């Protein structure tokens, strides 16, 4: 079953690495309430676990205690687990039917990595994929270092209160409210969708989905959720981490310029490169309306589809940059936001921390 959805997204980052509580981003989702329908909301915060910054933070849903025990035993076979605890939540009438929500700070055992001849990130990614595909009732919904996603069935502003995001501090935040036209309302299905430190919030419905999915699954990714966001996350992980593309290069694969634009590019290396990337990765072109915000260790990237079929605006104030589906959301975070502009289709907006800022 494929789940089409329309959504609201918002994001903020401090370029100087100043840490902000999750309060502002929760507020930002309020004016866009009508874009969600209470069936899913979520947030990602970066720089929120400074005390455990060298460990992968696994955020997990479990259906019962037994599954949790089993999963913990499985993790301990190949990871050092330095801490495992319930993620603190607030009981509230707006959020019900919660699964068991737990987090672990882990690092893969050197001996295991040496045995498998895998680099650390690849091993972590494979473990996450394995748990999500093979372990019934267990689901890893966040797996990066010094970052975390928080998501649930409900309106995004309630989800933020539920997870007590006002008590976390991070240098960047992304948020998502989902308007699925057809969903069973499973917690794992909410956004952001993540793998390692990449998190994606996405507004739109992509028409290239199955072409993208069937291609990316050749490289060990398993799309279990049948949502656009999941496949976009895997594509970005594949292009950036595994193929070593820069953010801009990855953007020029998924929102590739039209051939006519490429032919008119004057810089000859640029032209050759665009032509090359489009020829090598035709199956990773994403068509249909989308606006996405990719969160990663040290920055954010916002990107629209090449026809710009979904709204997205960017604004700035001092050290902070704001991104949202609607200007109103930016105004809530910062009434005096300046330089509000709408990036054109296929043009990535990349904001990174100043050197050594965090």
């Amino acid at each position, binding site marked *: 079953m494929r789940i*089409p959805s329309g959504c609201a997204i918002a994001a903020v980052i401090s370029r100087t690495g100043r840490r902000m509580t999750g309060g502002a981003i929760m507020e930002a989702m309020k004016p866009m309430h009508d874009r969600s329908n209470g069936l899913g909301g979520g947030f990602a915060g970066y720089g929120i676990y400074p005390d455990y910054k060298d460990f992968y933070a696994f955020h997990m849903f479990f259906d019962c205690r037994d599954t949790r025990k089993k999963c913990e035993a499985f993790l301990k076979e190949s990871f050092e687990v330095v801490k495992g605890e319930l993620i603190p939540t607030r009981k509230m009438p707006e959020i019900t039917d919660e699964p068991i929500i737990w987090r672990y700070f882990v690092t893969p055992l050197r001996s295991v990595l040496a045995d498998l001849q895998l680099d650390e990130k690849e091993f972590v990614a494979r473990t996450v994929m394995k748990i999500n595909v093979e372990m019934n009732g267990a689901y890893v919904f966040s797996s990066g270092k010094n970052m975390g996603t928080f998501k649930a069935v409900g309106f995004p502003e309630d989800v933020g209160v539920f997870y007590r995001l006002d008590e976390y501090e991070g240098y960047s935040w992304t948020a998502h409210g989902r308007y699925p036209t057809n969903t069973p309302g499973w917690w794992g299905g909410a956004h952001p969708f993540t793998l390692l430190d990449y998190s994606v919030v996405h507004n739109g419905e992509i028409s290239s989905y*199955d072409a993208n999915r069937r291609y990316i699954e050749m490289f060990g990714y398993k799309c279990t959720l049948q949502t656009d966001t999941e496949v976009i996350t895997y594509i970005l992980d594949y292009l950036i981490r595994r193929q070593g593309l820069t953010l801009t290069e990855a953007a020029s694969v998924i929102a590739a310029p039209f051939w006519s634009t490429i032919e008119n590019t004057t810089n000859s290396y640029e032209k050759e490169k665009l032509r090359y990337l489009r020829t090598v990765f035709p199956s990773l072109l994403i068509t249909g309306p989308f606006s996405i915000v990719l969160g990663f260790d040290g920055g954010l990237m916002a990107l629209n589809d090449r026809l710009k079929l979904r709204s997205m605006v960017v604004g700035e104030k001092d050290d902070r940059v704001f991104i949202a589906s609607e200007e109103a959301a930016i105004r809530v975070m910062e009434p005096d936001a300046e330089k509000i502009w709408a990036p054109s289709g296929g043009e990535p907006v990349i904001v990174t921390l100043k050197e050594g800022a965090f």
Partner: protein
Amino acid sequence: MGVEFIYPEFEVVRNYDRCIACRVCERQCANEVHFYSEERGVMISDEAKCVDCQRCVSLCPTRALKIVKSDSTLRENANWQNDTIKEIYKQANSGGVLLSSMGNPKPLPVYWDKILINASQVTNPPIDPLREPMETQVFLGKKPSRIERGKDGKIKCELPPQIALSLPVMFSAMSYGSISYNAHASLARAATELGILYNTGEGGLHEDFYKYGKNTVVQVASGRFGVHEDYLNAGAAIEIKMGQGAKPGIGGHLPGAKIVGDVSRTRMIPERSDAISPAPHHDIYSIEDLRQLVFSLKEATQYKKPVIVKVAAVHNIAAIASGIARSGADVIAIDGFRGGTGAAPTRIRDNVGIPVELALAAVDKRLRDEGIRGNVSLVVGGSIRSAADVIKAVALGADACYVATAALLALGCHLCRTCQSGKCNWGIATQRPDLVKRLNPDIGSARLVNLMTAWRHEIMEIMGGMGINSIEALRGNRLMLRGVGLNEKELEILGISHAGE
């Protein structure tokens, strides 16, 4: 007569109120059906020779003619059908293998017709191809599996040789010899104008057509007719023909009567000698041997030309394709069992091979399961009849389609299925100069360009309806397809859901 007599299949119906005895039909019919009776002062016909090619009907200035199926039939029998019985009579008369041409006409399932295409509504906007750019270009060839950078950090942009097509369609192999000089000229000129490729087939390349090299696939088949170094380097790609959908497992036979003049020179064989291509390539008895041929062709062309390996769709096509994908080939062309031919044994044409839809779905899946889909591009042929078939093939996983019969129809072919006789009244499947000149390459190429331009518009319109603005986002996008009236197994092989799911 007597026991050998078979009542003619067609009747020539002439409306004598309209017939002015201008004798056009007589001049037009190479089968010598029509003649003028001086004695009676009227046109009469020997309908036993008529093949229903519609030439006389199309050219009769007073519309006095029509050809109808004869209603003189044997007693009806669901098991022993008319054709079956007549074929037995023919074989009892001749003692020979029955020959046919063009594709399998039997009522076997056409899966294209049981697959429906999606369109966007509400949640995802359709795109108007008249207002927004809509891209149909494709590149066929091996794609590198790793991005590499130089010391300066720049991406190394060298690609293995690629075939660039302005739309995912090529004209498939039809040899000079089996079809006429003018038919080849039309195909070559149309391919050049359209920015696509046509294919020489196994008969070599006439010297006049070297100038269309950038839009030519040069074929190397088991007979190796007309193959030499300049030929290999003349085209944009080289195709090794291992098999043909209409006659998997057997070679080809062009009768000596067609090996005249330029045809004999181009094939590099003596005039009037039968051109027989053996069933196997005599240097290929395994996949390793194929690899050697692929690389010898690449050596001969300095690794500048992509190599296509064309195979017939047979039972274990997925495993075969997986072998080819590892043989160094850049493109695999799969020819389905409904593919056309200039001549094939009837029994083989009608009973050997499998539908290309199923073969394509199985191969695309297999190559993805093995993670080697990027090693090769997939081209499918064997009765691609319309833009809708192209869309469905691409969504199932093809990079491009081969069309031949549709192209011949554009040139005037009326599918009389008697190409093997060499008396094609439309100037296509013939070498008789008086017939060949009936096909004017100026008109022929213009009609081919029209046909493909129309298909391109339709492809763009259907893509736009799905909210897709570039053909690569459609390739392998099986979610855009639904089956109707297919059973679980068929859906499973096609990898699509049933309508309503």
